[in-house]
């Protein structure tokens, strides 16, 4: 009669995969089943043969060969540690101390930007005056520095980044977008407020106005909500009414702010 016992368990027994309880269960069955006894014996005979495979021994010279290779590698490394490697190492240590990978990228881009700009103007030669060239380079540097510092983990550095924008005459689209992102996403309320203050000076740009309106519903801090209400009122931006109404519907909006928003909506609707 054919036995219905799971034969995989016989293999598991040979491969030492079973717990004591499982082993006992298999042994109990095998003791009463001749078919499984035969199968287990066959498996174990084979398994014992596989155990007998001797471990090969490497030659005695293997260690010496390795030591020679190791020594050669060490010499090679020593030779590589030249003047330039030292400089590279110092730079990498310095940047590792000062910057995050994103900052490193930003600074790298800044250097490339400055070099590219100088090359461009060197080639053009006759276009702008030297003063214009320099001013353009400074502007580019400030913008890059702003974009880089806005990603810095320290809030004070991000505040510094926002303050740099005030020193730029014509602010680039990328910087404006970065400021709007900061306004909407920065974890620090002071950074968000400073970004808002800076953006409030750029409201002649329709995209900035639109960005500020969209930001209203995203703000959770009463301070930023209040500042946005003041700005919208000074701009007489009627399009912001809808966003303020959304804010009013939110149960978590501060009661004092709700009163201010209602007053702002009223004044905008006049």
């Amino acid at each position, binding site marked *: 009669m054919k036995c219905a016992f799971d034969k*995989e368990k016989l*293999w*598991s027994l040979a*491969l030492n*995969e079973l717990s004591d309880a499982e082993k006992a269960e298999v042994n109990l069955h095998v003791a009463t089943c001749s078919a499984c006894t035969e199968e287990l014996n066959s*498996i174990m005979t*084979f398994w014992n*043969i*596989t*155990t*007998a*495979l*001797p*471990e*090969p*021994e*490497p*030659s005695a010279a*293997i*260690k010496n*060969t*390795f*030591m020679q*290779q*190791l020594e050669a*590698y*060490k010499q090679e490394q020593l030779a590589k540690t030249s003047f330039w490697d030292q400089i590279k190492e110092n730079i990498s240590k310095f940047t590792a101390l000062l910057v995050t990978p994103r900052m490193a990228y930003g600074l790298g881009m800044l250097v490339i930007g400055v070099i590219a700009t100088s090359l461009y103007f060197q080639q053009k030669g006759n276009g702008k005056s030297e003063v214009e060239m320099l001013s353009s380079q400074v502007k580019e540097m400030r913008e890059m520095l702003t974009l880089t510092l806005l990603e810095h983990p320290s809030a004070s550095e991000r505040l510094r980044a926002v303050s740099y924008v005030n020193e730029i005459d014509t602010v680039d689209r990328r910087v404006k977008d970065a400021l709007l992102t900061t306004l909407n996403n920065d974890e620090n309320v002071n950074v968000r407020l400073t970004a808002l203050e800076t953006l409030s000076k750029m409201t002649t740009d329709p995209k900035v106005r639109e960005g500020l309106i969209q930001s209203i519903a995203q703000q959770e801090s009463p301070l930023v909500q209040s500042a946005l209400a003041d700005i919208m009122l000074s701009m007489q931006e009627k399009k912001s009414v809808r966003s303020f109404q959304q804010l009013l519907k939110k149960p978590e909006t501060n009661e004092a702010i709700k009163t201010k928003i209602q007053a702002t909506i009223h004044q905008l609707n006049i």
Partner: protein
Amino acid sequence: MTNETIDNQLMFRVKEGNLDQMALLFDRHHRSLYGFFYHQTGIKEVSEDLVQTVFMNMIRSRATFTGTFKFETWMYTIARNALKDYFRRNKRTGNTVNTEELEENIKETTTADHTLHRKEEELILRKALARLSETDRELIILSKYREMKYQEIAEILKLSEGAIKVRIHRAVKQLREIYLEISQQTMSV
């Protein structure tokens, strides 16, 4: 201190730049690695070269050692890559083991009559191992001859422990089938 901790500490020292510590790791692991390669290639010189390659590769990529897994797990991951490279360079697929050299080595060491039977078994077993697929052979070598736990093999092969168990069962059964087949052929000659 466990062997794992000692290995990891030595490797961390290598990572910090103390390359001489690799000589200690070499002493502790080169035999095991040599066996791993010899069972898979059947060629002494190649196996020794591969051992050297693995230790030098570990030095070169010491920065990638994190200690998340056992040192041995990391070492065998590098060993597998070295072996794959070797097979690729030599464009050998399927039956990758040099059974001729294995046969020669066994004949050389067979002196007394009482060892003849065991040597025959060994030869058949090596031939059977050689006829397995690279993957099945590797699984048997790691679990049976390197005595690795399924979990460790799973980490090296980047598979689940359950998948390793299923594959090992399949590989062992396949090995027995081939072993019995070769035995019968040998007996009928």
